[in-house]
């Protein structure tokens, strides 16, 4: 049965069923809020995973694109009179263009140098957002007008749960399908060995750039969704710590594993909520759990569990 449907469909179906069933277990809209946060973070993490896990390039400034998306839906309607949905597209387009322009030079760098260059990009975006207070409200942030679709004002945790769930499904579907396209294969070739990929005729620069642009668009859309859901944005969302959080989600869940990114996002969003019962030890435990899981599950949670399963079988 599973073989008949294929790997991708199974993942998508499981995800969709889970999204549909979870609300039945939720006692209050607070759970919808937490779940929506998981979906949004997972969306950004999946995008980053395409860049990091598939194409093998690191980005330590990815929250910059998240911030562009978030501020697009804040500034667009407030200052430019844009429709909110149009603002999401404008944000995504802006992120794509920025990724394209900046990616061309910096993706020629490798390893630590690339990490620093992307980090710089993220910091720059956060700085612009913080200092241009006339447009962005400065360090204290600014309100985001409620999204309205054909006269229907979108609000409430439940509504946003379904919207973010839908976005994540689309994002997952796209990322899973990418695997089996020539682009996806080129990404994997790049990941394994740049020299070999080049020798085999892969246009290395072009595919790196493509992965970077795709990752930027994912982050931007996730940023827009979170901003509209919160009704408020502030520069933290574009900040370095958020970039690190996204990278952690990807690495913790498993580099290259799309399901891993969802799991990674879920762990990093839900765990702090669970750990509040430990009060003062909350951060200590969070750090401990992450350290221990990285030591014992070096490939990330999902690939490691998959490996264990294979071993158990053979």
């Amino acid at each position, binding site marked *: 049965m*599973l*073989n008949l449907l294929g*790997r991708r469909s*199974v*993942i998508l179906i*499981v*995800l969709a069923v*889970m999204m549909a*069933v*979870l609300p039945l*277990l*939720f*006692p*209050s*809209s*607070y*759970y919808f*809020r*937490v*779940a929506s*946060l*998981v979906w949004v973070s997972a969306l950004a993490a999946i995008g980053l995973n395409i860049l990091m896990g598939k194409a093998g390039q690191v980005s330590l400034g990815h929250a910059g694109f998240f911030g562009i998306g978030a501020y697009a839906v804040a500034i667009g309607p407030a200052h430019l009179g844009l429709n909110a949905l149009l603002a999401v597209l404008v944000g995504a387009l802006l992120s794509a263009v920025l990724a394209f322009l900046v990616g061309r030079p910096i993706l020629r760098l490798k390893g630590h140098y690339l990490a620093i260059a992307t980090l710089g990009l993220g910091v720059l975006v956060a700085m612009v957002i*913080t*200092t241009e*207070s006339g447009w962005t409200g*400065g*360090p*204290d*942030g600014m*309100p985001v007008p409620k999204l309205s679709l054909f006269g229907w004002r979108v609000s409430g*945790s439940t509504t946003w749960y379904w919207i973010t769930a839908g976005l994540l499904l689309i994002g997952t579907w796209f990322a899973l399908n990418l695997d089996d396209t020539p682009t996806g294969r080129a990404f994997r070739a790049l990941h394994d060995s740049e020299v070999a990929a080049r020798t085999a005729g892969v246009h290395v620069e072009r595919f790196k750039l493509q992965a970077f642009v795709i990752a930027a668009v994912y982050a931007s859309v996730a940023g827009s969704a979170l901003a509209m859901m*919160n*009704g*408020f944005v*502030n520069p*933290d*969302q574009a900040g370095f710590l958020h970039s690190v959080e996204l990278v952690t989600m990807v690495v913790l869940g498993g580099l290259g*594993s799309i*399901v891993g990114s*969802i*799991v990674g996002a*879920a*762990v990093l969003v*839900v765990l*702090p*909520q*669970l750990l*509040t*019962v430990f009060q003062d030890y*909350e*951060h200590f435990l969070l750090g401990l759990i992450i350290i221990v899981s990285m030591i014992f599950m070096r490939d990330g*949670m*999902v690939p490691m*569990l*998959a490996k*264990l*399963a*294979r071993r158990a*079988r*053979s």
Partner: protein
Amino acid sequence: MAHYTHVLRSVAVGATALALSSFSLMHAALAASTIKLGSVLSITGPASFLGDPEDKTLKMYVDKINAAGGVDGQKIELVVYDDGGDANKARTFATRLVEDDKVVAMIGGSTTGTTMAMIPVFEEAQIPFISFAGAVEIIDPVRKYVFKTPHTDKMACEKIFENIKARKFTKVAMISGTDGFGSSMRAQCLKVAPNYGVSIVAEETYGPRDSDMTAQLTKIKNTAGVEAVVNPGFGQGPAIVTRNYAQLGMSSTPLYQSHGVASKSFIELAGPAAEGVRLPAAALLVADKLPDNDPQKKVVTDYKKTYEDATKQPVSTFGGHAYDGLYILIDAMKRAKSTDPKKVRDEIETTKGFVGTGGIVTMSPTDHLGLDLSAFRMLEVKNGDWTLVQPGS
């Protein structure tokens, strides 16, 4: 073999779902005879200097109130979450307090950023929210359910310019930090300066992590006719400004700092350069030096003693904001003889003559702060300590 992997992947995802649903179990319903108050504070992270004393103050005084029998015989149960200074987390915790913990009132919100992010949650749920954050945007425009206890940066500007006016200065230079505090206060100062006949003749800024402001100060020094310099900012920036100011030999021109650095550590950081620096601050900072007939004397000395005895740490005005918030709320509940959020809200709004650490609070439907300029005292650093500046000098 391959599809085994996929099943396992699904199991991993399923486990997450379980984790999500299991925390409903961790919050079993509590006895109905308690009053549940919520708080979201930045206890860790970059704003922990705000959240930490606030957290300690709230817990300490809630224990005190409970030991004395609670409010009208009902014990208070305080739920505190740490947002780490992250507005997005604060928003989630706010939702949790309203939806899951079902609190009847909210006291907290350490920073303007976290407060602004939480406001929509409490406005929508119609639960009173008393914030401990500084900026004036929180209560201007007035929101039905939102109040705050700390003075605003606008009042600090007014207090400074009032003093500048009393000294018959009209030409002022400003050097501001570009962090949230500095940029917000800078904007407020520029707005109110004309009301005091003050013109800003030079304006410089510095970044929150800059380690030298000599260049900006030299520019101010070379501007003709500057009679006083105002430095809106907090953290280490103002201490560096103060040191550079003395190094450049500018000390003959009065330097005004903001309430943002109203703590002993500023004097320690700036060293002898701090001599003669003036700043507006809450009475709490000079509790021991207040004259005995000062209406705030008893409250601030009691709070200072209680806090310092319990924590062995020097008192800060931030913890004082939490004290004020808690007691404004408790008083309102006693007056309302109810914990119904709507009735409590109405009573908070009629708070009259409440003597807190931050000043004497009298709220109204158009004023959800309730402090006037008398809440600030103008202080001057003399011999490495704060002294009260006599009015008119």
